[in-house]
């Protein structure tokens, strides 16, 4: 399928999805008023039948809407995401329907696990020899007392795992001050609070490490500067250095590599957005200076 046909198909699916989202609701509301009008002049025998029909229409509408949404997403991702990822990164594996598992996120040692977990847009690739995986993650805690229910979002954003072949440490966590729902101590080890030389950094980040020396080894003055830059750029971040991996969570409240089905697609704008989402990964690799220097 050429670009023109793909764009036409996307727009078609988008419109169908919008119609499916709107029509059953309008139909249901209309019927509700019709029943209400008839009921005021005596109970109609037709009322239960009309209600049933309205419910069936609603279910049918939403089912179709879900199907169109999925088809739209699949076409969007294959058109705008897969290609661009291949242009920017090496050895790309992309699965937009799946993400990290709950167990994997638990092992990242970044966020407390709630009782609702969603993850999609799994990417495994490498950039300049550095292997990484990433996915969108949403973690919530839902509580219900019978009369009322409450949902707290622990994390909504992107998580990354970078290989860090140059340095290995046991466990060092650094959370920006606004990263609230932090994971506990990994594997139950006692962690010490670490104060580094930079007063500004100590005010912005909470650092904990199983072994104090690991924190000073990992958080060099350059790394301190890098983390401050990441914090300033993305707002709400958690970083966990463990073994030869760096786990990064950006709690930005948004999903990456997603098109907005509510508005018509602009080919260039969507490509640009995908590039921007990919640049976050490159930016992290470069800011954290993970590349092996081959010059010497």
């Amino acid at each position: 399928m050429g670009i023109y046909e793909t764009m036409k198909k996307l727009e078609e699916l988008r419109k169908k999805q919008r119609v499916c989202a709107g029509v059953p609701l309008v139909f249901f509301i209309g019927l509700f008023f019709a029943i209400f009008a008839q009921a005021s002049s005596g109970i109609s025998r037709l009322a239960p039948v009309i209600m049933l029909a309205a419910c069936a229409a609603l279910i049918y509408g939403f089912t179709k809407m879900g199907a169109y949404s999925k088809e739209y997403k699949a076409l969007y991702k294959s058109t705008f995401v897969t290609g661009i990822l291949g242009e920017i990164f090496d050895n790309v594996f992309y699965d937009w329907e799946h993400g990290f598992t709950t167990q994997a996120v638990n092992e990242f040692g970044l966020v407390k696990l709630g009782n609702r977990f969603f993850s999609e847009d799994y990417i495994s690739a490498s950039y300049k020899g550095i292997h990484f995986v990433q996915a969108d993650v949403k973690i919530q805690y839902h509580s219900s007392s019978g009369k009322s229910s409450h949902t707290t979002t622990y994390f909504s954003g992107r998580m990354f795992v970078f290989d860090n072949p140059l340095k290995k440490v046991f466990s060092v966590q650094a959370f920006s001050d606004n990263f609230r729902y932090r994971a506990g101590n990994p594997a139950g080890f006692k962690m010490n609070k670490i104060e580094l030389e930079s007063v500004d950094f100590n005010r912005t980040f909470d650092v904990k490490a199983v072994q104090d020396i690991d924190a000073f080894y990992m958080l060099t003055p350059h790394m301190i500067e890098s983390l401050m830059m990441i914090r300033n750029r993305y707002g709400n971040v958690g970083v966990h250095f463990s073994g030869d991996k760096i786990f990064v969570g950006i709690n930005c409240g948004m999903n990456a590599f997603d098109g907005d089905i509510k508005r018509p697609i602009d080919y260039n704008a969507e490509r640009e957005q995908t590039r921007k989402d990919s640049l976050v990964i490159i930016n992290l690799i470069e800011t954290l200076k993970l590349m092996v220097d081959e010059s010497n």
Partner: protein
Amino acid sequence: MLLSGLDPITLVIIVVVVVALIVLVWGIGTSNGIKTLDLKCKEALSDIDVALVKRHDTLTKLVDVVKSYAAHEKETLSSIVSLRNGMSMVERNAAANQMTDMLNRINVLAEQYPELKSSENYKQLQNAIVDTEEHLQAARRLYNSNVSAYNRKLVVFPSSIIAGMAGAVQKPFFEAEESKRADVKMNL
């Protein structure tokens, strides 16, 4: 209510005992705090020693590799520093600086011997040196951070009273190597 039936002398005694207890508990807490920091300084110092020994060993191997390529440069490579147990902070600083000097000389030499520079062994040892330097820097920063907290306890009132009674003395910092400090010199 409870104390209203007591005579003034007993009341004074109770107040004095309570105050004395509070002071005692605070004194023990502060003394333990100072001892804990002292222990942390000692641990950090042993991290420095480990890093220095690692750096020394790697440097010795590097010197051997360089000698195999540049046998007639004996004079340049002869003065490798020796480490011993119980070195003072000044001696540790001197040892670290001497090792850095030696490394600089080796780097200059390597420029004259392209075969040496391109040898796999040399590259691996250079990477190992970089890693040991990073470990040394981390150990130095941790030690200085602990020493800073320890010295603060010793000079700030009222913990300085307990420190004075315990005979604690301020600890010296492990200075940044001269070459590292030279890096930040600016000619304006």
